């Protein structure tokens, strides 16, 4: 059950990593886990999502989609509806521009294909079981396990749905195709809310996982 060592030992060597076994293990810790563009877009996305969610909660409270369910006002951003709308429609530019750069670079560098695929249901089940029984190893942060792959893909698609449903709500007359795609104005609000709930759930699990594997936070900060 010493799988922990295997990926590192078997991982392709980077230039300059040749040498004795000890030198190799020291330089393995030096290899880039996340390229700089990924770290920048990750943190900008985190900022944008946090601002969007907190201000969105205040906007939601102005007229709750689900009668009787409200977000405690002290958790929200904006102070009042107009302030929340200003935050929301400012952060949307960051979310969209940064998201497009992230998706674009993922495709151009081919990272999307190498990091997220192949992904099979069997692998997800196996890694999920390993995670739940605390037997999943996180020794090589460059390689996502199947649960991670699925979670990141889900949240990427979810953020796209969030943006599209948001656009359908913001510009329901100007974007008729989006409005139709979201099932009309009122349904778009429900889609927008549910997509928000998914991203918040992802955020919670994501932060818990980072707390369990603190090295992953360092890797997202300094790249190694």
């Amino acid at each position, binding site marked *: 059950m010493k799988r922990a060592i295997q990926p590192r030992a078997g991982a392709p060597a980077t230039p300059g990593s040749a040498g004795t076994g*000890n030198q190799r293990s020291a330089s393995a810790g030096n290899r880039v886990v996340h390229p700089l563009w990924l770290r920048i877009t990750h943190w900008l996305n985190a900022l944008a999502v946090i601002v969007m969610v907190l201000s969105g909660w205040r*906007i939601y409270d102005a007229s709750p989609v689900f009668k009787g369910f409200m977000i405690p006002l002290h958790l929200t951003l904006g102070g009042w509806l107009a302030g929340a709308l200003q935050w929301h429609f400012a952060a949307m530019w960051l979310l969209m521009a940064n998201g497009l750069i992230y998706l674009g670079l993922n495709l151009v560098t081919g990272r999307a294909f190498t990091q997220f695929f192949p992904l099979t249901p069997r692998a997800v089940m196996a890694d999920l079981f390993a995670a739940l029984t605390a037997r999943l190893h996180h020794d090589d942060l460059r390689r996502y396990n199947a649960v991670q792959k699925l979670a990141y893909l889900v949240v990427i698609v979810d953020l796209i749905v969030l943006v599209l449903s948001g656009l359908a709500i913001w510009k329901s007359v100007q974007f008729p195709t989006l409005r139709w795609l979201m099932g009309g104005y009122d349904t778009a609000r429900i889609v927008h809310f549910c997509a928000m709930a998914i991203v918040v759930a992802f955020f919670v699990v994501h932060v818990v996982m980072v707390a369990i594997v603190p090295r992953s936070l360092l890797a997202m900060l300094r790249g190694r």
Partner: protein
Amino acid sequence: MSDANKPPPLDCMSILIDVRRELAMPSRRRFTRQALTLGGLSLLTGCSLTDDESVNRFLMSVSRFNDRVQAWLFDPRRLAPTYSEAQLTRPFPFNAYYEIEDVPKVDASDFVLQLSGLVTGKKRWTLPELYALPHAEQITRHICVEGWSAIGRWGGTPFADFLRRVGADTGATYVGFKCADDYYESIDMATALHPQTLLTFQYDGETLPAKYGFPMKLRMPTKLGYKNPKHIREIFVTNTYPGGYWSDMGYNWFGGS
């Protein structure tokens, strides 16, 4: 595989070097700083940051930028969806910046609609004169900035025709409104000339009730509810930005849908 099963002998010196390097790493300090920033981020909640003048100025300038984006997105020929009688929201909600008891009571007998600014034609209109104008009906969705929406049936005269009839300079930038409830509002000329922009005198086939804006309301299904002024008593055409009751408090001016 075999390497993994048989770990190499420990090299204490290189481990020590690694440990020292780890501890001296600036990213450890950076980690603490990031944690502090997360704490700072939590200050975003509530209204603490919104009270900051520079933040307000920044957000207002983004809102002005969003006005321009919306004007660019606005298609003067694209129609808002229309609905059937069966889809009407009943009762249509009353909504204003005051309670329903404070709805202004406008006297129909001596009411005169004033036109001013860049207008060359008839500047005073009585209600019978307005009611005699070409009639149009629409069943459209009123979308409130709060998120709720309601479908209503409105009757009146197409605003673009009216503007041309009164000799308004349709090349001007804004059309402004002054209302009997001290509300004021202004819109872009492109929206004023939109085929579904209706100077409304009727709700659901009957004279517009006071609660919906007697004697007239400008109905624009391409804009959010607060952009649709009620109890209009004066309309003016101008190139000077007139603002609006809610926009002056921080709501987006264009307010398009």
